[in-house]
């Protein structure tokens, strides 16, 4: 395990992030958008853990932060889904194109 280079982790995180970003920006279904956001968060987690192991000053801090992020991500997903449910009940759709309330 020790000889795996840092760059591999970073590339994986990059791929994950880009996939997530693409999903978040292009998908119509709000559930998929939420899942894509989770992907991006996990990409960040991966970076944090990788740097905590292979960074210039290795320490436990990165992993602690990753734990925080996971917690927050979970909460965020819960809140997001709850909002989606509420929206679905009132609007009958989870299509993000129909949600342009910011405009008016």
């Amino acid at each position, binding site marked *: 395990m020790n000889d795996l280079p840092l760059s591999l982790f970073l590339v994986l995180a990059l791929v994950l992030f880009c996939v997530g*970003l693409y999903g*978040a*920006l*292009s998908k119509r279904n709000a559930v998929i*958008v939420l899942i894509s956001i989770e992907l991006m968060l996990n990409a960040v987690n991966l970076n944090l853990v990788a740097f905590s192991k292979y960074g210039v000053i290795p320490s436990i801090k990165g992993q602690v932060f990753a734990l925080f992020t996971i917690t927050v991500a979970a909460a965020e997903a819960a809140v997001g889904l709850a909002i989606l449910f509420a929206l679905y009940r009132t609007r009958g759709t989870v299509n*993000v*194109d129909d*949600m*342009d*309330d*910011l*405009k*008016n």
Partner: protein
Amino acid sequence: MVDYAWLVPLFPLLSFVILLFFGQRWRSGAAYTGVILTFLSFVVAVTVLIDQIGGSTAAVTFDWLRIGDTVLSMGFAVQPLNALMLALVAFVSFLVQLYSKGYMAEDPRIGIFFAYLGLFTFSMLALVISPNLLQFYIFWELVGVCSFLLIGFYYYKEEAKAAAKKAFIVTRIGDVALFIGMILLFWQAGSFAFADIFEAVEAGNIAPGMVTLTAILIFVGAVGKSGQFPLHTWLPDAMEGPTPVSALIHAATMVAAGVYLVALMYPLYLASSAAMLTVAIVGGFTAIFAASIGLVQRDVKRVLAYSTVSQLGYMMLALGVGGYVAGVFHLMTHAFFKALLFLAAGSVIHAVNTQDIEKMGGLWKKLRFTGPLFLAGALAISGFPLLSGFFSKDEIFVATLGAGRWILFAIALIAAFFTAFYMFRLFFLIFQGEARHEEKDVYESPGSMLVPMIVLGVCAVLGGYVNTAWFGTFLADWFGSSTNSLGIDESGGSPGVTIIATVVVLGGIYLAWLIYGKRAISREWLSGRVPWVHKVLYRKYYVDEGYHHTIVWFTSGFSRFLGFFDRFFVNGLVELSAVLVRAVGGMVRRLQSGQVQTYGTVVLIGFVVVILIMAVTGGYFQ
């Protein structure tokens, strides 16, 4: 006693303060308060005068305001000139207040009337004892505002309102000139005190051009206050005020303040012959100009007002030709007979309830006291021999001739002829002939109105004997004794001038008698020949109309233009910027689709662009 001269203005101030708070409730009590306090002030003023004739002077100052290292002071000073003025003002004030007690008895606002009179008397007396130009200016403005308040006393009359406003604004034009002159003098002499200014002038510390400039600016102030041409238009209109006010303020005291100012600043004028000449020409021109208007007016008070303007012109003329004593002397005698004439006119108006002389007539038998008193005043102002006006006018003629001003002398003579003529035109039209008024019951005025008139009548007759070529030149000696530096050189009498003047005056009276008394000459004889002259005179040379179509028109046009400018240009720019912002916002708002995903994409693109720029430039912006 001169050290207590500050008490003189204090009594009327007290009267003002008391009456302001309680005047409305007291009514006749208000009148008594005013009269008694002014009388006290008169008593003190007389003792000051006597003391000053004995030779004592006073000059007391205290610090008033510090501006950096400069300390401005206030205080009072007593010299011959202002001791005389002090007594004169207090005297006439007291008499007029006594008269007003009867004249205004019916007016519901008598309390406030006496309060204003108190304020006026205070300001005028304080003006007289001012030791420096700043204090003088302060009270100068205050008398102006009192005049304004009293002209507008009948606030519900549109004419009174317009006249009050006009008086304030026209005199303010003069005041501003005085203001500028005062400040320029301050920066030249380093002080407002008269003594310091004169010292600087005599030492030659002020450039001659500056002396002339300041002297003329100060004279413009005097022109405004004393109703000299071209700022005379307010004074005849000021007759809208109650008659006692016309007598006190617009005849005897305040309007004479301009003459007093020039007399006070005499060393400054002596240092500039151009300024002296200006004073003389403006005075002489005003004398004949106003007298000619007075020939044809129909309102008794207006005739008297133009007469005042004309007589003030005489005083200015006297000062301008170096006749210091003559000017001040005429100021004093004029105060007596003009106040008398106004009070008598007031008594007539009181009796017949009109000011139109065409609607009077035949009052000689009904007004047993007013008639003779008016006659005495008319004779005095005309310069009938041995009455006060005779002596003072004579001095002015002598001084004018002595200065070699032939044209001005001729003008003064013609003006004297006019004066005699219009005064007796008034007299004959009011008191002789058949009664043309509608009033059934014409009564003589009550005692409180007659007593002041009688006292003034005595003064108008005898007041001239303080300074005559025959019985001793007391006034000139007195002024000469303490103010030698003024270069007073009174040449005494000159029999030739006296005879010419007397002939002219008698001629004027005789002509008036022929036309209005005996009616040997038809009234239309002259005005019918040259109707346009009559018209021009009756319309006062169209000066008011001229001002209206130039200065007033321009001012109001200019301010209208600025108003439009402000509304459409300045405010327009503001609106324009608002419209621009809104337009830009309208364009940008199309990008706001409300779609979070679109926003996210834009953020992403922006981020990439930033990264790209940083990659190209190699880090931060350098």
